[in-house]
């Protein structure tokens, strides 16, 4: 079971690198959906088959793996953009930065005062690496839609930590968190459309009229 969990978490890291290096938006959305779907298995692998973990897994799978990507794909189709061109920092430098932050996450996790049973698992370093990758995506890309993807990856990283602590979060709360995420992305999708209608592009560079 442990091997399988670790394999899953390593796949999650590979997906981080894919999104950092790819310019094709549709592929990025699909791969982030895959990441969400993989992470949805995590509660089952960690806590075994209980009512709580089954519901959490199912919920996370529906929201992170299906509904949110569907909303984003629809937004991309409506605004007819295919690629992220000219990110603020190039793809290769971003990949190198991603590699550095991932290595940093693994080193840093060793220093953390973790509970004994979390020391061997990859949970915490992978969570940190995913959060960093999400942040990188947020700050190095110009297209609004990639920024939303970055936010989703950040949430995915936090989800991994949340799985470790799922006894602290009643099912109601976890469901609420997922629902918030979904509605948030839904509203973001609407705003994306409006940005596109107003500027006929999705570059956040254009959103720079408000300054001191």
């Amino acid at each position: 079971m442990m091997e399988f969990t670790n394999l899953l978490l390593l796949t999650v890291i590979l997906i981080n690198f894919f999104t950092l290096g790819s310019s094709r938006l549709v592929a990025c959305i699909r791969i982030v959906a895959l990441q969400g779907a993989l992470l949805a298995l995590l509660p089952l692998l960690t806590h075994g088959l209980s009512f709580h973990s089954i519901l959490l897994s199912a919920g996370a799978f529906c929201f992170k793996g299906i509904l949110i990507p569907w909303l984003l794909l629809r937004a991309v189709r409506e605004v007819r953009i295919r690629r992220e061109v000219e990110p603020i920092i190039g793809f290769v430098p971003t990949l190198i930065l991603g590699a550095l932050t991932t290595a940093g996450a693994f080193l840093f996790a060793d220093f953390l005062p973790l509970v004994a049973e979390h020391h061997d698992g990859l949970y915490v370093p992978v969570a940190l690496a995913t959060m960093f990758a999400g942040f990188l995506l947020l700050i190095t890309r110009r297209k609004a839609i990639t920024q939303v993807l970055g936010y989703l990856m950040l949430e995915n990283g936090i989800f991994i930590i949340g799985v470790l602590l799922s006894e602290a979060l009643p099912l109601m709360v976890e469901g609420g968190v997922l629902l918030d995420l979904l509605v948030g992305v839904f509203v973001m999708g609407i705003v994306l459309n409006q940005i596109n209608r107003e500027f006929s592009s999705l570059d956040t560079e254009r959103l720079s009229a408000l300054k001191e």
Partner: protein
Amino acid sequence: MLVVLIIFPLIAAAISLAIPWYQARSWLLPLSSGLHLLLSVLLCLGRFPLESSWIGLDALSRLVLLVTSLLFFACGVYAVGYLNLRRDRGNKVMVPCLLVFLSAMTLAVVARHMGVMWLAVEATTISSAPLIYYNRSRLSIEATWKYLLICSVGIALAMLGILFIAYAALGGGAPVSLQFDTLLTVATTLSKPWLHAGFVFLLVGFGTKMGLAPLHSWKPDAYGEAPGLVGALLAGGLTSVAFLAILRGVQLMTAAGEGDMARQALLGMGLLSLLVASIFMIRQPDIKRMLAYSSVEHMGLLAIGVGIGGIATFGAMLHLINNALTKGGLFLAAGNIQRAFASKRLSEVRGALKALPISGPIFLAGFLAITGSPPFGPFMSEFTILRGVFSSGHMIIGLVMLIFLATVFIGMGTTVLAATQGEPEHKTPEFKDSFMLYIAPLILILLILLIGVYIPAPLQHALQQAADLLEVHP
């Protein structure tokens, strides 16, 4: 009973979606918010038994609940007149979003579980985003996007902070729960490094929502582009709710015996907010952006008050009320001025006192109040905070604060006086003061005047109780 307070705005929102009449939809706002205010007052007087592990009222949430409810009622009354003028824009999105926003704010205030509090605050972000976009211009979409993205990322970090606090319980060997009262009882056993990390992330996350510098970058844009009544609700209501969330972290740190670190962090951010606000307030050519920076300044004052502790905490509690009501009045009056001159730029707004015989003076009085001139309420609370700073021996901090406050007064005064004095360029403004649009800000400013002159004993008592919750009791 508390559940009713959270549920019925949602029901009202559903009704507003279902009914086809424009006017009736607008009237739902003052009706629901009036009922909300009535219920809140009854609950705070303790007319109904309320205790559950998820939601409950303590001295702090009573205070914030009453303030936000009162402010929302004022904005609800204003909204009827406002939406009447904006029939071209419609209110099919505005009304339900406002009501959901009210419900989410209420839930965030009364939550006794960190997770519930988090998702309520996130719900306020999502429900207020369409409100900022109400005017549908290029500028408002930019403001909405910044607000949505920055606050969502900020609040995601707050989630991480909350999870770290849960991990602190795990590391300390306590039963893992995020129920706030449980956390307080096991606070001493929490693992310190995780608790520290948790508090820092909590402060960063909810500090973004509150608009403490350096996390305030979305604030001038959002407040500047949103309609006046939305600005009033964000600056008066939402900031207070986010501050309450930070205070929960302070309570927890204090219970764990780590109160000093929490206070120092708040003090540092508070001073930085004052600095940033006073810099950008000078020669600010945009009235609403000026109010946004003023909001950053007052968030800083709240943080400093709690950061110093003692009498200054009491001052901060009083200032929370004053800031919410004054900011509400100012934003509503500023909205009236913006409509009359069809601009919020100083280059076009001149002679507001003459053009708007009621909203103009309200705006001027609000400016005097918010900068701490007697006899208004904020003077009392700012004075109390400063007295706490000086009496606790922080001479340098006190002097620096005085310099910043003076700078803000001069910077804000230049803008406000230029806008209100003189002769209006157009003899007949396209919008005249109407009763529905000035009654709400007028009442808010009068309340502030009242608090400045006389604080009733029950309020004094309630403030003291709230301040006591944040103090160390060895």
